[in-house]
C-alpha cells in the first residue's frame, strides 16, 4: 500500500485554482522530491495532505487515512512548513519541550534532537532572534522529536547556507537509510537531485510528471561540443556512425550518442584537427525548465 496517496486533489481559493485534479502516490521508504516553480501549488498540496487546508475536491491520505484520522499524527508524520513556527518569545528548548509534551515523547528527546540539528549551543536563546537557517533547523528538530515514519519538508533549504544544505542532505539520507519515507518540496531540481530518487513535478497546480530521477534524465546526455576547422567533414563521419550531430556556428558541432574518446579517434584517423572538445553532462536544471516549458505550451494549446 502507498504510504502517501493523493487522488484528484483540487483546491480553489475563490476563483483561483491553486491545485487541479492532482494525483500521485509514494511508496514506503522512498525519498521523493516535490518540485515546481513558485506558485505551482506545492505548499497548498502539502497543507491539504496535513489537514491544514480543506480540499475543494479529492483526497490526500496516509496509508488510507486522512491526517485528521491518525491517532498519533506526530508519531507518523513529521512536517516542517514555514520554518519552525515557534513562538518568538520562547527559547528553542521551551518550544521543543512543548512539542515533546504534545507528541507524548520523553523530554530526553529534546536534547537529542537539539544535538542532531546542531542547536545545542543556542537552546536557551529566544527563537525570535534566530536566523532563518536556525529556524529551519529548529523546525526539523521538532519534526524529528517523535521519530516519525514519514518526513514532509516544505522548501527546507530556504535560508540555509551551503554547509547547512549539505547537512540537510545528509540528514534526509540518514532518515531514508533507516527505511523512512521523505517528501521534500523545492523549486530547484538541482538542489534536491543528490538527495531524492524520485520526483513529482507540479506546474500551475497540475501534475507534470511523476518519475524516477534516472528516468527523467535518461536519453538526455551527455553531449560533446567540438570545434574544428573541418567540422563539416567530422559531422559527416559521425553521422555515418549513428551519432546525433547538430551544427553550432561555422566550426562547431554538438554530438549526442557518442563519446569524446570515440570522436577523437575518428578525427585522428582522418587527420581532422580538433581545436576544442568539451563533454557536458545532462543538466538537471535544463531538464526541469524543459518540462516546465512543455507543460506551459500544452496548457496554452
Amino acid at each position, binding site marked *: 500500500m502507498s504510504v502517501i496517496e493523493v487522488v484528484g486533489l483540487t483546491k480553489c481559493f475563490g476563483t483561483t485554482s491553486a491545485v487541479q485534479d492532482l494525483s500521485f502516490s509514494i511508496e514506503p521508504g522512498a525519498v521523493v522530491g516535490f518540485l515546481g516553480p513558485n506558485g505551482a501549488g506545492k505548499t497548498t498540496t502539502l497543507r491539504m495532505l496535513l*489537514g491544514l487546508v480543506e480540499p475543494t475536491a479529492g483526497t490526500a491520505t496516509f496509508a488510507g487515512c486522512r491526517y485528521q484520522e491518525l491517532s498519533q499524527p506526530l508519531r507518523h508524520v513529521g512536517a516542517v512548513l514555514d520554518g519552525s513556527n515557534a513562538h518568538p*518569545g520562547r527559547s528553542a528548548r521551551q518550544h521543543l519541550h512543548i512539542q515533546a*509534551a504534545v507528541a507524548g515523547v520523553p523530554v530526553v528527546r529534546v536534547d537529542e534532537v537539539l544535538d542532531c540539528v546542531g542547536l545545542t549551543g543556542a537552546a536557551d536563546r529566544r527563537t525570535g532572534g534566530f536566523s532563518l537557517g536556525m529556524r529551519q533547523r529548529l523546525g526539523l528538530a521538532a519534526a524529528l522529536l517523535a521519530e516519525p515514519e514519514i518526513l514532509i519538508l516544505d522548501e527546507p533549504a530556504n535560508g540555509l547556507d551551503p554547509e547547512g544544505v549539505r547537512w540537510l542532505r545528509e540528514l534526509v539520507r540518514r532518515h531514508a537509510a533507516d527505511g523512512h519515507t521523505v517528501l521534500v518540496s523545492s523549486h530547484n531540481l538541482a538542489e534536491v537531485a543528490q538527495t531524492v530518487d524520485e520526483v513529482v513535478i507540479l506546474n500551475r497546480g497540475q501534475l507534470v510528471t511523476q518519475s524516477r530521477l534516472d528516468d527523467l534524465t535518461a536519453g538526455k546526455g551527455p553531449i560533446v561540443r567540438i570545434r574544428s576547422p573541418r567540422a563539416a567533414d567530422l559531422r559527416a563521419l559521425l553521422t555515418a556512425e549513428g551519432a546525433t550531430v547538430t551544427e553550432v556556428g561555422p566550426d562547431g558541432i554538438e554530438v549526442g550518442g557518442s563519446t569524446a574518446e570515440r570522436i577523437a579517434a575518428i578525427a585522428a584517423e582522418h587527420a581532422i584537427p580538433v581545436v576544442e572538445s568539451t563533454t557536458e553532462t545532462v543538466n538537471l536544471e535544463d531538464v526541469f525548465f524543459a518540462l516546465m516549458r512543455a507543460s506551459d505550451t500544452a496548457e496554452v494549446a
Partner: protein
Amino acid sequence: MPRLVGIELLKLRTTRLTYGLFFAAIGLSILFAAMAAARAGARSIPPLASAAGLAAVSVVVGYALLLALVLGITVSTGEFRLGTATLTYLATPKRTMVLAAKALAAAVAGAVFGFAGGITTTVVGLVFVAAKGDHVALGSATLVGHIAGATFAGALLAAVGVGLGSLVRGQLGAVIGVFLWTVIGESVLDGIYPSIGRYLPFTTATSLAGSKVGGAFYAAGGAISGPAPLPFGAAAALVAVVAVLASVLAAATTLSRDIT
C-alpha cells in the same frame, strides 16, 4: 483532554505576555482601589468605615477581569498572529479539542487573574481602613465571597475571550473591541437603558465579584444607585452562556478555516 489543557497551560507559562498582563492587572487594581479609597467619605461617597464604603474599594476588580478577558483573547488569536497555529493543529488536528483545551486553560489563568485582583483590592481597602484607624465594616465571609466571585468571574471571562478570539482571529481588533465594549459600550448602554445594565455580560461578570452595576472600573460604587445585579447563579449562567456561545459560533464558522 487533561494533557491538552496541561500543554496549553505550559504555553501560557512560557509566554511573557501572560506575566505582563498579570502584573498590569495587579498594578491597575492597586491604582484604582487606592483612588477609590482616597475618595471614600468625600461628598456623597460612603466612608471606609461603612460596609458600602469598604465594598466600593474591595470590589474594584474591573481591570483585573478585563485583562483576564484579554488574556483569553491572546490565547486563541496569538496562535494566528505568530503562526504557531500550524504546529498546534498538526499536533492536534481536531480543532474543537484545541479550542476546548484553550478555553479551560485560559479559565485557569483567568481565575488566577481574578483571584489576584480580588486579593489586591481587598488588601488595599483594608490597608486604608487600618491607616485611618477605622474598624472593618465587612465580615470576612463577605470579603472572601467577593474574592471567590472575582476568581470565578476571571475564569469565565477568560473562557469568553478564547471564544471571541477564535471567532475574530485578529488580535488587535479583538482587544480593541473588548476594551471599547467593556469600558465604553456597556456604560453607554447602561446609561441609556438602565434596565438592561445588569444583563450586559461584562457588568454581569463583575457583579459576581460584588461590584454594583456600573461600579466595576472606578468605584464610587457605593454612590451608585442602579438596579440590583443579577443573583450569583443567574449571573454566572449568563456569562457561561456567552462563553459557550462564542466558542460554538467559532467552532461552526472560523475554526475550520484553512491555515495557509
